[in-house]
């Protein structure tokens, strides 16, 4: 079943003559890993921001499970779609690393013991336990990236959008992230990966959509990826 859908979407930033995206038609299922690739400025991040309703299309429509994205509040979308920004600084706002990871769960009214358990798990998995009481913006770029991913994953969303998730990660941490995302995908969560990291995309993606100059240049369609074979 189609989870996210863009129909004849055009998007222009204010005071820009050339649209950032033109004539985008794209359907994404609730499961499966789709990579969006393309050169800098091809419109990848803009496309993902349209999907979560942070940006509104100039023309066309974006739908989430058949309903226009405009009909949902950002919080409703956020509870269903986890979004990792390209720049982790933009999404870290708590006073400590532990609070950052548990923020979503705590604000959804989860039991404190459950929140603590989840926080401990994600801090451990992403090797952030030593920084649990540190102010997030004091972390290095790679640590911030891991924290941003951990904070989104801890929210247990149905679908993930990760914009350049491997930036700043060393080979070992990249492998950890890859393993975790594969596990999430095997459990049935869909995801979009925006990345320039070709080896990572090759290992992860079942479908590759290539953007160029604000248009879809190619769409491989969904293919079997051995990584998700039982």
């Amino acid at each position, binding site marked *: 079943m189609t989870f996210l859908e863009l129909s004849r979407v055009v998007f222009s930033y204010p005071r820009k003559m050339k649209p950032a995206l033109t004539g985008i038609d794209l359907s994404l299922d609730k499961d499966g890993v789709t990579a969006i690739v393309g050169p800098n400025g091809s419109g990848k991040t803009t496309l993902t921001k349209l999907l979560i309703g942070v940006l509104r299309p100039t023309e066309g429509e974006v739908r989430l499970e058949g309903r226009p994205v405009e009909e949902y509040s950002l919080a409703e*979308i956020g509870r269903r779609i986890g979004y990792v920004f390209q720049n982790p600084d933009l999404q870290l706002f708590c*006073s400590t690393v532990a609070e950052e990871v548990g923020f979503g769960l705590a604000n959804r009214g989860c039991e404190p013991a459950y929140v603590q358990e989840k926080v401990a798990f994600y801090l451990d998995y992403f090797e952030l336990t030593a920084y649990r009481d540190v102010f997030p913006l004091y972390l290095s770029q790679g640590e911030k990236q891991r924290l941003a991913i951990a904070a989104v994953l801890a929210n247990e969303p149905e679908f993930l959008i990760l914009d350049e998730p491997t930036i700043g990660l060393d080979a070992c941490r990249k492998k950890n992230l890859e393993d975790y995302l594969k596990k999430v995908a095997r459990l049935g969560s869909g995801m979009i990966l925006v990345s320039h990291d070709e080896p990572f995309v090759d290992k992860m993606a079942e479908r590759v959509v290539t953007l160029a100059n604000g248009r879809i240049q190619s769409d491989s369609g969904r293919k079997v990826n051995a990584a998700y074979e039982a």
Partner: protein
Amino acid sequence: MKLDPRTKMVMAICLSSLALLYDTPDRLLLLLAATVALLLLFRFNPGAVWGYLKPFLSLMLFLFVIQSIFSPGGAVLLAAGPVPLVTSQGLSTGASVVLRIMVVTASAMLFTTFSSRDFILGLVQWKVPYELAFMVAIAIRFLPVFRDEMINVVTAVQLRGVELKKVPWGKKTAMYRRLFFPIVFGAMLKAQQLAVAMEARGFRAYPRRTYLRRLDLRRADYMSMLLFLSATLTLMGADVMVK
């Protein structure tokens, strides 16, 4: 109309000073009209002023209500038994506060009609120390950055599933206070990083600075400054005499 940045600074200071002095809605409304007319003269889109004011609408409404209730005097327009709730004086004070914010914001828009380079150059030619001028220019340049950061944080919070509009008022204050802290802290970090980057590029390496360009005040600048300063002083004097 092309004027020197220093002339525009004088205009903005004159308009803001009058806005702070005036306390009746009719005069503040006239001042706002004059400020908007001036912006139009400099080909500034008044819609952009509205864009800047929009985020402060709830604050302005709050101030209007508070001032209306807590500024007694004049005819009682609404009362709860013997306690007057809204008076004509209260409404007048409330409207004045809102109009004052609008005039100060609109006059500050004059600073956006020239570059930060020209701003620094103008102040330095007025013998303001370069470091001080640079500091003020950086502070002005960072204002939109803070606004964007606030928007980013609010978006990020909502994307973690928090319905900000549905948070009860008591908790909302605590939530915004918590969000404000990382923004202020982040700003301090940015300032530290900026200082390091500037020193790395030789900021203050030499005691004397040279400038490629010079700003020159023309006849129109002198006339405009004279007109604005004399008009402001006259209006201020008249206001003091009347009071």
